């Protein structure tokens, strides 16, 4: 029976009350540890299709008569369109439609950042569309851009009111501290650069719109498009079967989708709007830069007594102000904490979520500060973290927390620092650093799945979710297989189409497995119950002695019948199971935890930094697929290394022009930059309070502590405090110079 309940929903740390219909029958969690299929390594179910080039991504969709779009984007950081003339573009060869700011609200006549869309042309080929865009005449009025976030804060040019938080009495805390450390940390703007750029194809079918899109949220796109176009949501069908990466940048429909829909309507033909790589690096979002002025006060034994932080997020012309202050508020037990966060509105492209937005940046600052504190007190950084471990949330208990166990598992990796330092040779200094991780990842309702079982004894799991490359489709298949007692190869998984399956959650916030997994298990259990009911009648057994295992219905009195024999009776009839995600445990915080230990080598002459080894220990509840999970961890760490050492979006400081538009200028990590050894250790302890699985999300946790752990390893190796990302050779050499000067002063002091 459907139950209507009032429950809490957490979206990146913000809780709201929502009404929710739950159809889930309570299922006990499986015992901890590997089952027959869940908890065991499984290669991804679509691996061969992807590897053989058979998988059809949005980039590969070709519809009959499809047109191609080129977009006129503002070359200026801040300017007004005085007049725009599309006449010549409309007359150009191959052009079928052209639109400007009067046609669509995402086409603007006031450009607040370089790369914002102003006009668009659909033509038979992309080359024709691009040539026609060059014929659009725009008379610009140039305005003075504000590019410096500190400048924006001092002018009061903010996207939200300053966000203030305080617990305890910070002033008194600092007054009572034996030691106070203060430092300013900076993180840079980084670009997502998914290998498949943002793209959409729109095709009108009468009053219905089909949207093929590279997205992290099929249902969110449906709702956004329906709202924008004033349509009933189910008149919009959204399709994304294979998806070439998102990392947070594809959570929304995006301007390009509305452009394609409007051009398709005007041209009466399907229209593709695909960003080029250079457009991608201007206008598709970024992880915003931050400035963090942090202060920590502690007793001489390392106990934190006060923490304070002023955070400036360089958000851009629009976007949201991520919780850069989150780790400072949440990671440690400290009675007195005060933070203020400014969301600076500047004439740069809007931020978009990028894998743990805010926490990647905030953890860099906080975890470096903690090590600077430990160094001043001559304490072991791991011990300082243990000493300040937060045993309970302020007013919300943790649904589960095993961070102390992570620290214990980190010990052998942390012990390697003595050997690592001893291997320093000539200008190459070696060292080890660590940093802790806290983040959300509990997922939540609503999410639904169906399971269909035919007389051949094969099951099909259907849900209109997306697999953005994280391997969630494989994990869902494992969950259904475990519940139905079927081998993996007898389960098919259908996803990626809002017209084919029920509502599924966003693939963001490390939520796909914790949101969708319980719904899939519930649907499989519903189908399983029906199979047992049928078998009980067919073989004249009591239901309670029947179970599903290894593709058979077995009875505890020794009977065993192949599933295909049981359901073979049905001929063309089908067993249909449905499942929904239940609520999260009320009043609890569902969080993920971890620690990473990194070994580095630093060439103190050239400033080159190499990451030699990373050990990642994370607590994310039950692990469904250890193979896919280790891939997620490695991928997060490698992106983290890119963020730490090589990636940076550069602007011309006068004009705001983006200088790093190509992958030649924006330096992504390559296979040659990968550490020779990455060790993944997942605790695999189910969260007893969370759903019928006890699984949390894993997409974001591994990228969070990497930068701080690298910086702390650099301090261990060289004594230098790096406080600015990326740790370019210039930054490394600056920090080394500063450390030498500081050491020189210390040596000089007693002599004078």
């Amino acid at each position, binding site marked *: 029976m459907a139950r209507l309940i009032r429950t809490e929903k957490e979206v990146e740390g913000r809780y709201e009350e929502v009404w929710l219909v739950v159809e889930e029958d309570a299922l006990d969690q499986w015992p901890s540890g590997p089952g027959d299929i869940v908890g065991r390594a499984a290669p991804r179910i679509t691996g061969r299709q992807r590897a053989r080039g*058979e998988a059809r991504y949005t980039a590969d969709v070709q519809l009959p008569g499809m047109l191609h779009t080129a977009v006129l984007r503002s070359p200026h950081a801040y300017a007004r369109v005085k007049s725009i003339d599309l006449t010549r573009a409309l007359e150009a060869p191959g052009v079928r439609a052209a639109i400007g700011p009067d046609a669509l609200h995402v086409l603007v006549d006031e450009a607040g950042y370089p790369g914002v869309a102003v006009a668009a042309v659909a033509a038979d080929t992309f080359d024709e569309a691009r040539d026609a865009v060059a014929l659009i005449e725009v008379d610009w009025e140039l305005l003075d851009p504000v590019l410096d976030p500190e400048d924006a804060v001092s002018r009061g040019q903010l996207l939200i009111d300053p966000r203030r938080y305080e617990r305890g009495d910070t002033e008194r805390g600092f007054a009572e501290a034996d030691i106070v450390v203060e430092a300013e940390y900076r993180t840079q703007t980084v670009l997502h650069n998914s290998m498949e750029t943002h793209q959409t194809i729109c095709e009108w079918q009468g009053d219905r719109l089909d949207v093929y899109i590279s997205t992290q949220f099929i249902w969110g796109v449906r709702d956004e498009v329906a709202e924008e176009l004033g349509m009933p949501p189910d008149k919009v069908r959204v399709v994304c079967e294979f998806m070439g990466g998102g990392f947070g940048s594809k959570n929304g429909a995006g301007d390009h989708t509305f452009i394609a829909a409007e051009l398709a309507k005007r041209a009466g033909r399907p229209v593709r709007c695909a960003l080029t790589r250079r457009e991608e690096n201007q206008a598709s979002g970024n992880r915003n830069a931050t400035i963090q002025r942090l202060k920590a006060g502690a007793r001489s034994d390392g106990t934190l007594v006060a923490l304070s932080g002023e955070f400036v997020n360089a958000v851009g012309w629009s976007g949201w102000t991520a919780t850069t202050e989150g780790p400072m508020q949440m990671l440690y037990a400290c009675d007195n904490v005060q933070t203020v966060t400014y969301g600076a509105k500047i004439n740069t492209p809007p931020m978009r979520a990028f894998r743990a937005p805010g926490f990647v940046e905030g953890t860099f600052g906080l975890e470096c500060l903690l090590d600077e504190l430990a160094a001043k007190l001559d304490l072991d950084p791991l011990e300082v973290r243990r000493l300040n471990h937060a045993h309970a949330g302020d007013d919300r208990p943790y649904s589960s927390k095993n961070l102390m166990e992570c620290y214990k598992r980190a010990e052998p990796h942390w012990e390697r620092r003595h050997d690592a330092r001893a291997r320093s040779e000539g200008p190459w200094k070696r060292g080890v650093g660590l940093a802790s991780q806290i983040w959300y990842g509990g997922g939540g309702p609503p999410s639904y799945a169906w399971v269909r079982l035919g007389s051949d004894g094969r099951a099909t799991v259907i849900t209109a979710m997306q697999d953005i490359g994280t391997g969630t489709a494989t994990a869902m298949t494992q969950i259904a297989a475990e519940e139905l007692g079927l081998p993996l190869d007898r389960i098919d998984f259908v996803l990626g189409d809002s017209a084919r399956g029920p509502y599924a959650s966003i693939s963001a916030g490390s939520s796909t497995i914790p949101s969708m997994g319980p719904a899939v298990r519930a649907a499989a259990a519903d189908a399983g119950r029906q199979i047992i009911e049928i078998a009980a009648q067919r073989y004249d057994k009591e239901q309670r002695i029947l179970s599903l295992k290894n593709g058979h219905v077995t009875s505890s009195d020794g009977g065993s019948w192949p599933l295909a024999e049981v359901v073979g009776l049905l001929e063309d009839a089908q067993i249909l199971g449905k499942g929904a995600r239940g609520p999260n445990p009320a009043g609890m915080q569902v969080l993920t935890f971890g620690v990473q230990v990194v070994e580095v080598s630093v060439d103190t002459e050239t400033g080159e930094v190499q990451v030699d080894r990373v050990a990642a220990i994370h607590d994310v509840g039950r692990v469904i697929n250890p193979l896919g999970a280790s891939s997620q961890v490695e991928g997060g760490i490698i992106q983290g290394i890119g963020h730490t050492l090589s990636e940076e979006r550069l602007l011309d400081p006068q004009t705001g022009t983006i200088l790093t538009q190509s992958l030649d200028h924006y330096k992504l*990590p390559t296979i*040659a930059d*990968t550490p020779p050894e990455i060790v993944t250790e997942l605790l695999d302890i189910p969260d007893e309070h969370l759903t019928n699985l006890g699984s949390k999300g894993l997409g974001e946790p591994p990228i969070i502590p990497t930068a701080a752990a690298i910086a702390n390893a650099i301090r261990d190796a060289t004594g230098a405090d790096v406080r600015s990302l990326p740790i370019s050779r210039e930054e490394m050499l600056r920090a080394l110079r500063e450390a030498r000067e500081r050491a020189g002063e210390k040596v000089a002091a007693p002599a004078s």
Partner: protein
Amino acid sequence: MVELVVNGGSHTLEAPVGRSLAETLRDGLGLTGTKIGCNEGHCGACTVLVDGVPTLSCITLVHTVEGRNVTTIEGLRDHPLVDSFVRADALQCGFCTPGQIVSASALVEANPEPTREQIRHGMAGNLCRCGAYPKIEEAIATWQG
């Protein structure tokens, strides 16, 4: 018109001067296994073999490969590397994977037992934003099963 030999078959196609090999393969022949990630020769997603040599098809003009042997991922679907990539979980979103496998096929053709260093050197032109690199290295090191 241009005459192309792709995966052992001959094709005669309309192609204006300036058309890239990648566009021709994808739009003219429907061989969409070759991906375009950047369209300016930086990411490696479009890698194909031209007479056995890894080539960035997005910055190769189709007329310059007339009559030469072009091999795309569709011609390598039964290569043991496909299985070794899947086995090692050497792919996540998979968009770069066909290009990775094409590059790797040339690497193991020239050197069936490459060292880890040789793999890193040979594969450094194929970007993977998901960061599947450790397992790509493993997949190539173990491609013979």
